[in-house]
């Protein structure tokens, strides 16, 4: 494991959400890499900061009373007029109350100021390339490459239906040596996007697709970061970002197939 692979996984690592294999690889890598150890330390600092200082809202008493009235325990107490239940809440009721507190807290955090801004910085391409690269690396973790593993474009394409408000073009290029292996939803550029997964020998290729209605068709642009090749273009109202560790000439060949 190198830093390019390790950095995007630091969060999942401290969350204890990695599979055993990646967990072990992370442990080993961080032990020998001061830079990734520092990233982990920052992530832990941020975590304790949030846990200690983030605003946490408690739900008001009136809400508690109303929820108790509709949960089964509360319902029984109300029906029988059992006032002792009110003074000494049953475990079920306490539990319901905890959930409710959490739910209310969560709602308030959501409502808490939401701000919009739409100015694009000068390095949008770089930022997107970074996002796409991270999404690619994360997808290579066990079990996250595909939500719909299928080599059949007629299975993959309908799978996106209802999950996205656009229909990504899905084609299999098995006869050209780039078989389709599946698809999934991912999150890039502040939105849910289609991720199509192709395979070239042992190299997985991620193709991220999202609508770009306002943008004109553009030629292929090439970026190389951390050993990954990233090609992107806009065509027919869709933006395509292709990322893999494949050699550049094979990436170009694949991009030509997609653009055919």
């Amino acid at each position, binding site marked *: 494991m190198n830093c390019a692979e390790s950095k995007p996984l630091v969060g999942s690592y401290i969350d204890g959400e990695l599979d055993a294999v990646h967990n072990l690889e992370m442990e080993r890598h961080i032990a020998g890499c001061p830079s990734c150890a520092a*990233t982990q330390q920052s992530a832990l600092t941020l*975590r304790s900061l*949030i846990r200690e200082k983030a605003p*946490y809202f408690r739900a008001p008493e009136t809400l508690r009373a109303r929820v108790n009235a509709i949960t089964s325990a509360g319902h029984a107490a109300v029906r029988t007029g059992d006032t002792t239940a009110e003074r000494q809440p049953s475990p079920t009721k306490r539990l319901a109350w905890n959930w409710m507190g959490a*739910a209310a807290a969560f*709602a308030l955090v959501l*409502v808490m100021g939401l701000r*919009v801004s739409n100015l694009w*910085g000068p390095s949008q391409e770089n930022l997107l390339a970074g996002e796409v690269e991270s999404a690619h690396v994360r997808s290579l973790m066990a079990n996250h490459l595909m939500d719909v593993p299928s080599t059949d474009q007629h299975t993959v394409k309908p799978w996106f239906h209802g999950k996205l408000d656009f229909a990504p073009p899905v084609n299999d290029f098995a006869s050209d040596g780039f078989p389709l292996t599946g698809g999934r939803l*991912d999150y890039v550029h502040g939105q849910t996007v289609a991720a199509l997964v192709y395979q070239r020998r042992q190299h997985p290729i991620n193709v991220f697709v999202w609508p770009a209605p306002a943008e004109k068709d553009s030629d292929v642009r090439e970026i190389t970061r951390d050993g990954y090749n990233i090609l992107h273009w806009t065509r027919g109202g869709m933006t395509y970002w292709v990322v893999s560790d494949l050699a550049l000439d094979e990436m170009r060949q694949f991009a030509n197939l997609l653009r055919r």
Partner: protein
Amino acid sequence: MRSWLLAIVRNTCYSWLRPNRRQDLAVEFDEGTHTPENETPDAEGLLIAEASREMLTRALEELPAEFREALVLRELEGLSYKEIGDVAGVPVGTVMSRLARARTRLAVILAADSGKEAADELRGK
């Protein structure tokens, strides 16, 4: 049951927000302002540790709603990725990338804020 209840609260909350604050839900993060050319949250650990309650609240407010909700469900409610996915109605992979982006952005905002406050102090404000 907990994820289920949170999912109801979330959906109700978003339905309330939609007509009332339509603008706010089309959240686009201003990458240009908040993300410097080189994202280096590593070096920002020290600055972040000094962040005040107010700064943190302000920084959280600046995050897009989907990012904030993932972070809150993870750090304050202690939900697993699977549970967060159930609440938000997205796959685990999406939860993972939202959390990663949320943390990076939060660190960058906080570091920028800390830098600003330190600079203000130096100028005697």
